[in-house]
Structures are given as C-alpha cells and as structure tokens.
C-alpha cells in the first residue's frame, strides 16, 4: 500500500501547477476571527452591559515602598466600552485579513488576549464586594504559581522541538518534587535537593526516551503511562517511607529568595525580576538560553530540523536519534528543576500528587506559546495569573463562582487550541518515531 501512496505522490507533483488556480491555493481559516467575535460578544454582554457601575481600584505600591505610584482607578462601564470597542475593531480587522487570504498576526492575537484579560479584570474586580486589589501582589503571586509551569513548558518545548511529544511533564515534575524533598531533608542542603530533582527528572526522561525512541512505543501512551507510574511510585513511597519519618525525610530545607537591592524596589516588575530564589533566576536564564539556543545557534537549527524532518536531517549527517535522546534528557532535567520548586520553594513539604495536573497545564502552555520558549513563558504566566486571580477573588468576594474561575484557564486553552493558535503548527515530526531505512 505504501508503494501506491508514493506513486500517487510523484504523479501529482508535476501537473499540480496547471491543475490549481490561484484561489485554490489559499486555504482560509476562519477559526481566529470567529473566536475573536465570540469573545467580543462576551465582552459586550459581561464587561459593559453587566458591569457593576462601580470603579475597580488597583493598588500598585504600599505606603512603605521607596517609589510611590498612585492607585489605578478604573470605572467599570467606560473601561468596559473602550475595551469592547477595541476588541471589536481587532475582530473586524481579523475578518478582513482572512477574507483577503492573510492570516491573523501573532501580535494581534496577543493584543486581543491582553485586552480580554484587562477587561475581565476590571469587570470582575469592579463587581466584587471589595473593589480594591493589590496589583503588584497579584502579579508577583502569579509568578510564583507560574514558575513550575514555565519549567514544565520549557521541557515540553525542548523535547517536542526534537520530535518527541512529552506528555510525561507531569511525572517529571512530580518525581523532581519528591526527590528534592527527600534529598534536601537528608542532606539539609537545597542544592543537593535540586541536583537530585534534576536526576529524577532525567530518569523519567530516560524511560520516555528508551520506550519511544528505541522501542517505538507511541509517545503519547508512554507519557500517560509514565505519569501514572510516577504518581503510583511517589504515593507508595510517601505512605510507606515519608509519612512515618516526616521529620527526617520530608522536611526539606528551602531556598531563600535573594533580593537585589535598589532594583527590587522598582514598582511591579521589581519583586518579579529582582526578588527571587535561585530557581526563579534560573528560570529566566533557561527561558532566554532556550530561545537563543533554539533559534539562533547551529545546535538549535539541528534540533528543529530533527523535529521537522528527521529524514532530511539524517541525510545531511545530523544524528537524529542522538539529538532526540539528548533533548528528551535535557527536558527531564529542566522539568525536574520545576518539580524541585514545589518542595524547595513554594510548599513546606512533599504531599501525594502535589503537582495536581500542572504538567498538563504546562503542556497546554507549550501549544499556546506555539512551541516557542518566549511564547510558552507568557502562556504559562497567563495560567499562573488565572490561578492566582482565582485565589485573590475568593478573598474579595466576587459574583463568579470559584469553580468557574478555576475552569477559566482550561476553557481558554480549548478556545486557544481551537481558534487562536490558528495555523500555527507544531514540529511536523513530533510524535513520529524515526527509523533509519
């Protein structure tokens, strides 16, 4: 059968130019404009027509800060209208672009998303019982929640760019969290814990790599099974070993945040960029390194070649399988660090299945961010923001039930995958094992 297919291929190559008129060359994708239109409608109905009429206050600095910035006061109704009109304009633009056969640009989608978030924020804070929110705290909190997601999504980008779908991020995070907790408790050194987390992440990756690259098992299946395996293993060991000896084995010593003087006093971005733990700073380094590495170095070009067209890469002498192994293992190391963040920074100790699906969210961030480290970084931030907003709003007392707030990131991902991402494609060979002929 395969012979027949190739035969058809070669036959269709030559006459194609005559067979197709220019109109048929353009495939129009209406997903993005339609999603835009839906959200504009939501914005119109909720943010403007259903606005509370009160003003939302965003506090930026506390009285003790070195630099004082006045509070941002947003009257819900006018702001709602402005945002809705801007969104409507973007929607019209998107429709016009698509009807002329062009795609909606990435920055347009990003701007639209930003408007949507801003509109939602003003509306939801304005309709809460307490209409004043500390914006700096909200954003800083989002960063803390986003750190493991960012690590996880970097792991996803790295391995998918080399052509291996990494569903096992969840397992890598969990394995990292577990070993970091145990080793840091035993050695009393968070650095040792971090190292152990990296090793654990790599071990999970070894399984992923061996099964998917050597034994050609479907990558999605290996990923899913590895998640179950790690969840089972860590829960088992937690109940049998950690719980009875929690003072010696599950009380990790933590990383403390390193505050860079002066710079950390800059409003809003100060605490985010200059008051982080080692892992926080490391995260920025990794994002930057991956972006430069993947798109501006020879190594990155090779990795992407392997992910897009392994056969071609092999033909020019790139070792496909070795590249894939290395990338998957590196991905495991990065995800392991993300896991360490759970037990060495954000929570006091390890608990059963503490990653709670964050690995899957990281996977969504990879796609949302179009397999680009920078994009995935911002997508993960958005998810962190949504989660933190849910906590903050629960305190403020909003009309939106907390479950719907919790649902929001997932629904947004569904819309994004179905619409906003539009024509962006992942690495063409992701998911297909490569065998030399």
């Amino acid at each position: 059968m395969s012979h027949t297919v190739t035969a058809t291929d070669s036959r269709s190559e030559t006459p194609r130019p005559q067979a197709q008129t220019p109109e048929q060359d353009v495939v129009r994708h209406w997903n993005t404009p339609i999603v835009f239109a839906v959200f504009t409608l939501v914005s119109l109905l909720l943010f403007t027509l259903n606005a509370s009429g009160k003003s939302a206050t965003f506090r930026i600095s506390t009285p003790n800060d070195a630099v004082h910035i006045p509070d941002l006061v947003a009257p819900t109704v006018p702001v709602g209208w402005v945002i809705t009109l801007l969104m409507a304009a973007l929607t019209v633009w998107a429709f016009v672009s698509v009807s002329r056969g062009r795609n909606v640009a990435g920055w347009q989608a990003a701007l639209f998303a930003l408007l949507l978030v801003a509109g939602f924020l003003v509306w939801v804070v304005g309709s809460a019982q307490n209409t004043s929110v500390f914006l700096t705290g909200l954003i800083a909190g989002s960063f803390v929640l986003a750190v493991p997601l960012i690590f996880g999504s970097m792991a996803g980008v790295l391995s998918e760019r080399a052509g291996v779908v990494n569903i096992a991020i969840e397992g890598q995070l969990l394995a990292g969290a577990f070993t970091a907790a145990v080793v840091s408790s035993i050695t009393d050194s968070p650095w040792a814990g971090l190292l152990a987390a990296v090793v654990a992440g790599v071990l999970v990756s070894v399984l992923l790599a061996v099964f998917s690259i050597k034994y050609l098992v479907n990558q999605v299946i290996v990923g899913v099974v590895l998640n179950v395996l790690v969840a089972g293993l860590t829960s088992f060991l937690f109940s049998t070993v950690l719980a009875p000896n929690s003072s010696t084995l599950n009380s990790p010593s933590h990383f403390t945040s390193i505050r860079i003087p002066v710079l950390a006093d800059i409003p809003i971005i100060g605490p985010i960029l200059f008051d982080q733990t080692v892992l926080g700073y490391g995260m920025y380094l990794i994002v930057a390194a991956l972006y430069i590495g993947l798109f501006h170095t020879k190594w990155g070009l090779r990795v992407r070649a392997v992910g897009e067209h392994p056969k071609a890469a092999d033909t020019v002498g790139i070792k496909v399988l070795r590249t894939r192994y290395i990338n998957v293992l590196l991905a495991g190391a990065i995800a392991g660090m993300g896991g360490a963040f759970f037990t060495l920074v954000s929570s006091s100790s390890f608990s059963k299945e503490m990653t709670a699906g964050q690995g899957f969210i990281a996977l969504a961030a990879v796609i949302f961010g179009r397999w680009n480290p920078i994009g995935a970084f911002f997508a993960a931030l958005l998810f962190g923001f949504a989660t933190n907003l849910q906590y903050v709003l629960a305190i403020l007392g909003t009309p939106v039930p907390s479950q719907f707030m919790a649902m929001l990131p997932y629904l947004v991902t569904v819309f994004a995958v179905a619409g906003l991402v539009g024509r962006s494609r992942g690495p063409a060979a992701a998911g297909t094992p490569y065998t030399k002929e």
Partner: protein
Amino acid sequence: MSSTATTERPERGASRSSAQTTSGAGSSGSVMREIMSGNGMVTVLAILLSLIISALLIIFTNQDFLDAAAYFFSRPMDALAAAWTAVTSAYAALFRGSIFNYEASSVTGMFHPLTETLTVATPLIIISLGIAISFRAGLFNIGGQGQMIFGAMFATWFGVHLQLPAGIHLLLVLIMGILGGALWGSVVGALKAWTGAHEVILTIMLNYVAINLVTYLLYTPVLQAEGSTNPVSDALEPTALFPPLIGDSFRLNWGFVVAILATVFAWWLLSRSTIGFRLRAVGANPTAARTAGISVRSMYITAMAISGGLAGLAGMAQVSGTEKVLNTDVAGSFGFDAITVALLGRSNPIGVFFAGLLFGALRAGGVTMQVETGVPIDIVLVVQSFIVLFIAAPPLVRTIFRLPQPGALKARTSADPVTQPLAAGVAASTTATADGTTHAPAGATGDGAGLADAEEEATADEADVSSTPPDSGPPLGSHPTAEEVHQDEDARRRAAGEGEQL
C-alpha cells in the same frame, strides 16, 4: 486470564503466516517458537515482571526487612525470610481480596472477594471499551474522566428528580448517562474535525472543565442534596438503581451484565458493523479512508461520541450501581486507568473485558492488601503502569526473558497499530522485501475477504496501510483540518486524473 483473550488474535494470525511462509517448517519446535514469541506469552510475562518489580518495592519499604538487612552479612536468612514474608503476605492478601478468600468462615465470605472484583471492574470495563474504540479510530481519548462525569451527572439528575415506574426509570437513566458522555465526547470530536485541534489537549482540558462543573452543580440545588452543605447529591430513586445480581449481601449488580452487553456491542461495532469498519479505516490511515469515500470528519465525531457514550455509561453504572449518590470523586482515576486497560487489552473488546477484570481484581485486592498488611494501594498503580509499559514494548520483554524474537512476517501481524504505529509500517515493508513479493492492495492478500475474517484482515490491513501511522505526526496543537486534507486530496485526485489523460 487476559492472556486467553489476547492470544486469540495473534494465534489466528500466526497460523495464517506459517501457512504463507513455508511448507517445511511445521515441526513441533516451530510451534513452541510461535508460542514463546507470541503476544500471549508477552502479556503473561509482562504481568509477571510487573509483579516482581512491585515485590521489590514492597521488600525495600518493609520495616522488618530493613531491620534484618542491617545485619545481613551475619545472618542473611533473617533478611531473606523477612522479604519472603513481606511479599507473600501482601500478595496473599491481594488474592484473598480479589478472587477467593480461603480464610473466610462461610461460603458467602469466600466468594465475596470475587463479586467485589466484578463490581469494581464493571465501570472500568465499560469506560475502557470506549477508550479502546477511540484508539481504533486513531484518537487518543484522554478525556474518559470528564465524559464519565458528564454521564454520571445526567444520570443522577434524571435518577433523583423523576418518579417513574421501575424498568422505565432505569432505562431512561441509562440512556441519559450515555447521552451525557456522548455529548461531552462529541464536543471534542467536533472541535477536532472542524478546527484540527489535537484531541489530547482538548480532552485533558475538558476533564478539568467537567470536574469544576460538577463541583459547582453539586453546590447548587440542581444536584446538591436538600439540606446538605457538602457537595453530594440526593440518593437516586430505588427505581433508577441496578438491582443486585446475586442477592442483597453482595454489591454486585446488573451493571455487570450491562458491562458484558457493552463488550458484545463494542465487539460487534468494531468487527461486524460498517461504522466500525470506517472507524478502523480512519484510524489506520485517514487519507486513504478519505480517498475511499469515508468522511473523516464525521467519523471523528462519531468515534468520540461512541467513546464518550461508553464513558458516560460507566459513570451511570457507578451512580446507579455501586455509589447510589453523586459526589465530586465519581470518576476517580477511571479515565486514566481505562487507558491502561485499553492498552493491555490491545484495544480489542474481548481483551479489554479481561484486562478490565484483571485491573478490577488488582483494585479490589489492593484495598484488602492495604488494610491487612499496610502495603498502600498505590502499588496497584505501579503494577498497572509497568504492565502497560512492558506490553507496549514486546521486544524489551523478549530481551529480558531471552525469548526468540518473532520473524518479520509475525511482526507484521502482531505489531499493535495503536501502540506502535510506525513499527507496524516498518515491519510491513521489511516483509515485502524479505518475501520478494509486492503487496497487493489491502484486502486481496488473505484467502477470504469475507466478514468472518474481518478481525485478522483488519490487523493485516492496518499494518499495510499505516505507513502513515494512525496519528501521523501529531503536533499536539493542531492537525491539518479535515477541510485542508480534503482540498489536498481533491487536488491530488484531479492531478492524478489529468496525469491519466496525458
């Protein structure tokens, strides 16, 4: 148990392949070789290997063993005895809790564990059938959990709020359960068909949406029990419950019969019906299926609707059978367990049924094991995932046990199109060169293309066709949309047509 089912297919394939290869090699040695390299053997060994690994885990976390190991070099027998006791007591408890309790005082008590296994296996089998069907259509339905929740939600509402005569009420609740799951499943199918979004991401995301939605509804009067502050529904009306199957002292109910019927249905659907044929064709090669006139788009929606419907039925079986109320934990980890069950059963309904029984036994026995020996039930997850890993990679198991690797022809018929899409294709191409014969188009190879041979025909077909694997190169975000494939295909057909004219 499960081995009998899984051997069935490969052995039929094996007899065919041996008939095809040569006439002289029919000695008893080659029969032995067939058995040793067959999938059934791999399944058995995979289960064995997983139990051994778990035994090691149990030993190295056992306090008695660790104490005795401290003086291992002076008295090694102590440590070995402690290890032996730890493992045998745990596995004996597993057996007593799942199959036959030889320590019980009454006959009822002795067979109680077996009925528990069947009870636990009921929803697992049903949902796994759904997952298996989606696998056969080339779709990775990770969303069994969400679909199960939807089924349970629908079933609960109709089971709590309506007063109807006995039989009709149960039937209505059953249909509603299926509808609920089918609804949530077809959302995924539709999104995939129309926008090209990848079903893995969609289903994972919709799981979370479903969990949050059911939690929300369980806090509103729609589902919450009157006067309750907890997220729990009222008990379903007695008319909406499955009656007990073998007496009131057992939890086993007619839901198990439904599971058997669902298995028969899934078998019929996949191997005897036109829809099933189309689903498998789309799963094997969407492009080829489209060329053959099958609407890939509607098949995606159909497959997800059927898959979701079965998951919803599992949710219904859970609330109408064992739980009798709806809570937020109704789907538990069924969604992910079902994936492992479907893989263990090699996406074949009969295999899935027995794999479901096996995992049901592990779960039921795991509870007893945890209570009696203190070995946490989480070990069951470890066993399950190792079994699936080993089953998915037969060469690994064969290497560990030094079994003969099957010949190329054998690999062609035995390579699992779901777990190893490309392997199947590769095996097929090597066969072609080894034989020195070119493959005739699918369907013409076998002796009879009649429906009776549909099952093994399909395996061979899939291996043939899947030079582009079921999920050819899925970037996890978007596929080429059906529309795009369609246009591409149109162009190709036109081009081919013109080529012929020239």
